[in-house]
């Protein structure tokens, strides 16, 4: 019973945080792209457009859910459900931090640890293709069908280099569980270089990142929804919450992929510096951010900055104070440090996703396929072979 209650609490917490993150990820994406292109981005709803995600959700819910004529009703309604359900499932096996004990309760900062956690994520993502393919097919629209076909072909092709790139760190750590994977990456070479898989497996990491761009249908591989050729691709005929489901699935896949990259290559919640130094990094980061916001609030460039930026500064300095306080409370320190480093790494990778979207143009379809099969696949294969050779020679 204890286990059930604990799992329910953890699941509710993770679901709430994940869904909020998904909503705000869209705000971050619009803001970052806007600033790359020298615009301001969302600015009207709330200070700096912070209420924009809420407004979008209200807009999408109150819109009429239109079902076009001559669609296959069952599959048309099933597709977005499949897409979003499978995209949200993967978070169940992602660990956010080490084992913690609050009072009498001892638990991991993870919903469940499967011995085959990595295979589980791969399995769920390989089933996720059906959401897009079915949506494209059931819409009874040639643009949607083309989008769905492109998407499934692309996801099958890029799944191969992705799986091969994932296999190399698995060989090094000799495990399929995320937890053991992170434990394997603890410690430092020469006392200061973190033992992350990133350094021996830099090629694998790059291949993984490229393939995950294609798996999540992001620019420069967003051929399934290329708006200048396919209107909006597989979700052309979707509106209201069905459309929102596809949108959520895309962002959720992004979060999953970056979390997996963090766990496999970037050491999960392990800090990049040895413990006594890394404990001060969050305090320093948030304090500096708060001071910068305070400075700009005192010398406002725009009229509203007088109010919004000092408020931001107070929030940042408060977070810095909490981190400073946590140095004296061991439980709080374990939780906060793990969350800070894990979320920090995930956010950096997410920022790269958005940065790429703001920078690179789209591939042509034949280029996309040729790149996967004649460049990425052989590279991943050679990387795996070299890794397995080294592992075979070094282990007894």
């Amino acid at each position: 019973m204890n286990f059930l209650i604990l799992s329910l609490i953890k699941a509710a917490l993770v679901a709430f945080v994940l869904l909020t993150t998904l909503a705000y990820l869209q705000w971050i994406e619009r803001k970052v792209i806007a600033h790359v292109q020298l615009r301001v981005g969302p600015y009207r709803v709330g200070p700096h457009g912070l209420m924009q995600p809420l407004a979008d959700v209200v807009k999408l819910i109150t819109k009429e859910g239109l079902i076009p004529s001559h669609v296959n009703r069952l599959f048309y309604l099933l597709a977005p459900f499949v897409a979003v359900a499978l995209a949200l499932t993967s978070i169940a096996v992602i660990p956010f931090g080490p084992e913690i004990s609050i009072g009498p309760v001892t638990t991991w900062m993870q919903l469940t640890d499967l011995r085959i956690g990595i295979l589980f994520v791969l399995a769920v993502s390989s089933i996720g293709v059906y959401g897009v393919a079915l949506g494209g097919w059931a819409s009874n629209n040639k643009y949607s069908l083309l989008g769905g076909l492109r998407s499934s072909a692309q996801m099958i092709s890029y799944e191969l280099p992705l799986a091969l790139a994932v296999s190399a760190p698995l060989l090094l750590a000799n495990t399929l569980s995320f937890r053991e994977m992170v434990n394997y990456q603890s410690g430092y070479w020469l006392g200061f270089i973190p033992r992350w898989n990133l350094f021996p497996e830099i090629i694998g990491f790059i291949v993984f990142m490229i393939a995950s761009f294609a798996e999540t249908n992001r620019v420069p591989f967003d051929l399934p929804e290329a708006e200048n050729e396919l209107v909006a691709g597989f979700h052309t005929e979707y509106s209201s919450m069905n459309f929102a489901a596809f949108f959520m699935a895309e962002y959720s896949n992004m979060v999953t992929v970056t979390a997996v990259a963090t766990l496999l290559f970037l050491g999960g919640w392990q800090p990049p510096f040895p413990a006594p130094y890394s404990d001060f990094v969050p305090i320093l980061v948030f304090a500096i951010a708060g001071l910068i916001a305070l400075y700009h609030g005192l010398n406002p460039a725009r009229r509203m900055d007088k109010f919004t930026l000092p408020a931001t500064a107070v929030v940042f300095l408060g977070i810095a104070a909490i981190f400073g306080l946590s140095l004296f409370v061991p439980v709080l320190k374990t939780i906060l440090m793990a969350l800070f480093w894990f979320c920090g790494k995930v956010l950096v990778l997410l920022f790269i996703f958005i940065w790429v979207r703001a920078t690179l143009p789209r591939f042509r379809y034949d280029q996309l396929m040729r790149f996967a099969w004649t460049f990425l696949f052989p590279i991943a294969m050679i990387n795996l072979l070299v890794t397995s050779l080294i592992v075979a020679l070094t282990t007894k």
Partner: protein
Amino acid sequence: MTALIFLIFAGIAVFCGISLVVQTHPIACALSLIGVMGSLAVLYLQLGGEFIAAAQVIVYAGAVMVLFVFTIMLLNAGAETTTFHASRFVKYLGVVLLAAFLGLISFIIQATLPKTEGVVFGNFQGTPVDVGHSLFTSYLLPFEVTSVLILIALVGAIVLARKEI
């Protein structure tokens, strides 16, 4: 609890299997097959064969069936039109024969299988380590022969496709 989960997913597997045969639309048939494979994966997982379960989902549901669905969509195959019209007598006779056949099978299973030594849930050694170990020790020859077989199939597919180009 395990028995309940077994019954639910065995039920889904049988339902999807029947649906696979009964459905007229190719896509619906393909999705039913995916349902069968998914519920089989859950049964493997229950037995403790977690690697087999994951492989079942990744390979069959995630790769093979995606290609099936992909081909069906590309060819834009419509619903099947039945050309066979059975008489009412044959239909009723079919129901009776099916019931008799199922009864016979269940009787044979009941009679021949030992009653006490059933499969124990979770007692099956199916971790990736076990699977890898048995693949490279006891089943090395079948494993290698299968890889040659797959290679032959690959080359054959390329040769057959080349004629068209």
